[in-house]
């Protein structure tokens, strides 16, 4: 009976427990009230939300020592021990801002990032694919961004007074050698990798991270897609070939493969080309990707690409165009990339990979064979550690082993001649990123390189910082030194040659809102240790060349003002001179143009279920040297300006069908990229010049893309 009495006693006592009132105010560091913050007594229902001015008041039936947790999105949770005794508790709580991944300050100098779609980025992957005039070529689309100079006869990315070889491509952090496919002399080449493979693209026009080396001007960092989500088959029927791809998905893995055959012969038979083709290019390409999730956070990726391209053409002599030389080319290319990343703990993560590039050109000039082979193996691992929310450290090491061999048949000695070199390169880098607040971030690091070909060691510092005073605008500066082994044709002559060096100074201001971007950037770039040789003797190579580039880049993008319209405008001003190669004195290089301007316009018309796109590009005249003039006039002549208006249309008649048509140079302007001159004078003692022109005024492309999947709402739009 006593137990029962105790029970009633307890039951009777309960209402006597007094409630405790807790009240006060939640504010941010500046004293501004935070509305909607969640206040809760841990492990109980008791709590409240703060009012519009940040104030709160609630009661709790709990007794004794408890924990009050105050939380709100964008702020660190605040933990407050409380003693609940019935006496009112008054609290003033200051919440600390969390470092914001979506809207806070970011390192921005020098870089254009597409992807990581939740961030406000300047370009999205689909923009790269759908830019008129680019025909789904990554370099072509990036050429509409400021900081690039149009060099129409190469199709490559020339960045801020840098040569095309100064831009290096990385896939999932791993080096890609020979990232462009073969093309006829003085015709644009296309990138080997299609934009649809990538979920993110970061195009840096300077001041990039210490993680990336062997690039003087620019790093193009492509991040491939993760595991595919559904089974599908894609078929493409193109005016220049066909492709078929299939993706198979499992719970934790996916495999996709693609075979593409490109043959431009029928097209060239239809549309007259300035190039005297014997057999226009045809290529067969196969690629495959495998993705496997490992454990909770691990991701393993493999990618392989195999390509063979053949063509044959006649080169005509400048002095006597009736003299012609047959050139046959077979290009074989393989690229294999494997990468792995995994979180080791909540504060440590590791990633690493291996890539192998192999590129071989077999040429025959009038039947005389020559072979050029480059193969490179790159391995890398990187550790990342966050000490806390504000400080992150990244360090790693890479080994890059590259072999180059060129041989040709010497018709006089009647035997093969070969040159080769091997360059092992070991490097280590470390970089720290510190977020002082959501307003200020600094990244500092250095890269150490040990080159075992020329036995040189070097250290390159890199620093960048950004300050975001308001909601949308931010300032950024960057500095760094960069080095790169000279191109193969010089190293094979002199293996002891030093790397070329560049120093970047960048100042940037940008305002990014959801659908508008304004960005202005100014830079100064100093070149040292450039390759130099006397005009008469290309074997006497030194590192005595130097140069500079300075300029201003402006970018504006708006997808808000006009409904269904998205457009961007880029302008770049470049002032550059170099004293390198066989230049008699400091002069503007022939690939450099002072003014580059482009407008990209995209208009979605729901009525006709189509997206129309236009791209206009303008490039001011480029210098060339007329050898009939004295040497002090070196590179002072100018070509006419370049201009191009391209258009494309993507028509989506059904969910899983896209019909795509594009045409470059609608106005048919006869653009001249430069002039080449005869090596000997004609009978009148004059060097004869010949303009380097587009192979045809326009390039037309038609493609039909069909997607077969269980889910009919999927199409290849993101792939285009």
């Amino acid at each position, binding site marked *: 009976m006593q*137990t*029962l009495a105790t*029970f009633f006693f307890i039951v009777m006592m309960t209402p006597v427990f007094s409630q405790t009132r807790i009240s006060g105010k939640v504010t941010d560091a500046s004293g501004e009230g935070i*509305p*909607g*913050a*969640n206040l*809760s007594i*841990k*492990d*109980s*229902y*008791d*709590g*409240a*939300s703060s009012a*519009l001015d940040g104030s709160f008041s609630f009661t709790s039936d709990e007794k004794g020592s408890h924990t009050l947790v105050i939380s709100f*999105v*964008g702020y660190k949770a605040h933990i407050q021990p409380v003693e609940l005794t019935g006496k009112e508790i008054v609290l003033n709580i200051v919440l600390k801002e969390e470092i914001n991944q*979506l*809207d806070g300050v970011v390192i921005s100098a020098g870089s254009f990032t597409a992807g990581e*779609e*939740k961030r*406000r980025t300047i370009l*999205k*992957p*689909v*923009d790269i694919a759908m830019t008129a005039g680019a025909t789904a070529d990554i370099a072509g689309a990036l050429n509409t961004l400021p900081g690039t100079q149009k060099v129409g006869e190469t199709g490559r990315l020339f960045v801020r007074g840098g040569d095309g070889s100064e831009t290096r491509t990385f896939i999932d952090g791993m080096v890609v050698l020979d990232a462009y496919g073969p093309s006829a002399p003085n015709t644009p080449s296309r990138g080997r990798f299609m934009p649809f493979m990538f979920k993110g693209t970061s195009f840096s026009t300077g001041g990039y991270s210490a993680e990336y080396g062997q690039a003087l001007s620019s790093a193009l960092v492509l991040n491939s897609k993760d595991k595919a*989500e*559904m089974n599908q088959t894609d078929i493409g029927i193109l005016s220049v070939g066909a492709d078929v791809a299939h993706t198979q998905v499992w719970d934790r893995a996916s495999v996709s493969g693609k075979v593409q055959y490109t043959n431009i012969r029928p097209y060239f038979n239809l549309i007259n080309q300035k190039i005297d083709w014997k057999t226009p290019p045809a290529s067969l390409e196969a690629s495959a990707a495998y993705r496997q999730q490992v454990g909770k956070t691990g991701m393993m990726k493999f990618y392989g690409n195999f390509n063979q391209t053949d063509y044959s053409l006649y080169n005509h002599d400048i002095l006597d165009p009736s003299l012609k030389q047959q050139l046959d080319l077979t290009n074989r290319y393989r690229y294999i990339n494997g990468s792995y990343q995994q979180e080791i703990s909540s504060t440590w993560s590791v990633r690493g990979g291996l890539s192998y590039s192999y590129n071989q050109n077999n040429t025959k000039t009038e039947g005389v064979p020559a072979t050029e082979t480059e193969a490179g193996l790159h391995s890398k691992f990187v550790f990342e550690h966050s000490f806390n929310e504000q400080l992150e450290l990244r360090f790693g090491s890479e080994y890059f082993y590259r072999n180059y061999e060129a041989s040709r048949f010497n018709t006089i000695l009647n035997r093969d001649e070969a040159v080769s070199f091997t360059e092992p390169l070991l490097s280590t880098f470390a970089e720290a990123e510190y977020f002082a607040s959501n307003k200020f971030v600094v990244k500092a690091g250095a890269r150490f390189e040990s080159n075992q070909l020329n036995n040189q060691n070097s250290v390159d510092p890199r620093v960048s910082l950004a300050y975001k005073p308001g909601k949308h605008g931010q300032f950024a500066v960057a500095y760094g030194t960069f080095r790169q082994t000279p191109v193969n044709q010089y190293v094979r002559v002199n293996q002891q040659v030093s790397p070329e060096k560049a120093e970047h100074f960048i100042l940037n201001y940008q305002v990014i809102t*959801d*659908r508008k971007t304004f960005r202005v950037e100014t830079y100064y770039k100093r070149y040292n240790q450039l390759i130099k040789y006397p005009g008469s003797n290309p074997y006497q190579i030194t590192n005595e060349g130097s140069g500079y580039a300075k300029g201003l880049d402006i970018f504006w993008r708006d997808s808000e003002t006009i409904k269904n319209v*998205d457009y961007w405008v880029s302008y770049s001003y470049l002032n550059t001179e170099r004293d390198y190669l066989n230049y008699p004195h400091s002069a503007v290089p022939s690939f450099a143009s002072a003014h580059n301007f482009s407008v990209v316009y995209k208009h*979605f018309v*729901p009525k006709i*279920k189509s997206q129309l796109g236009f791209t206009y590009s303008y490039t001011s005249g480029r210098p060339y040297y007329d050898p009939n003039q004295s040497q002090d006039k070196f590179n002072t002549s100018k070509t006419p300006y370049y201009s191009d208006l391209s258009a494309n249309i993507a028509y*989506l*008649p*059904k*969910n899983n069908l896209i019909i795509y048509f594009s045409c470059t140079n609608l106005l048919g302007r006869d653009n001249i990229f430069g002039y080449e001159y005869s090596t000997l004078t004609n009978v009148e003692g004059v060097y004869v010049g010949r303009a380097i022109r587009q192979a045809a005024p326009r390039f037309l492309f038609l493609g039909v893309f069909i997607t077969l999947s269980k*889910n009919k*709402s*999927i*199409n290849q*739009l*993101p792939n285009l």
Partner: protein
Amino acid sequence: MKTSNTIFMMLLVITVYANDEKYVEQMGKQIQNVYTAKSIEDLQIAVNAFDRIANAEKSKWEPYYYSAFGSIMMATRTKDATKMDSYLDQALASVEKGKALAPNESELIAMEGFVYMIRVTVDPASRGAQYSGLAMQTFGKALAINPNNPRAMALMAQMQFGTAQFFGSPTTEACGMATKALALFENQKPASPVAPAWGKEMVTGLLQSCK
């Protein structure tokens, strides 16, 4: 001794029952608040309450479910893309916490698909392809677990309808789904007072556009 044991047991039952009553009562109140919320602020208050209940209960998936629902509703009421994403991040985090407790709950998986569906609206041009596929797939998963989940069916119909409208293709399939969803709504018998019951208006609205 026997009596005291019985009493002890009774006491236990009473407390458990009392707790459950409190849970049901509090949940019911907040569920009403989410359904009738007039502003983002109202929704935030309800979401906060669900988060408190979830933290206190520890083993119930429903508070996480409604917290996610409230966060999605917040996302639909703002135009600021960054804010939308941040609400949707919150919603997805709640769904994940709920899924850790009830991995095969059809309702939670349908809610996950709902997050992806709203993700599309933030930037249809660049997200449409990825997230609309993901949303459809997730609704499919929810229906595979429970073919009679009216909300999964309704959301799928809504998504399908939007896509068909965009491409100007016939909406018959989507409308058929909506009719099916309506039938499911009419026959649904909530397993508990806190079981999800929303979504019928969405379907009747959709069927209006189908006419």
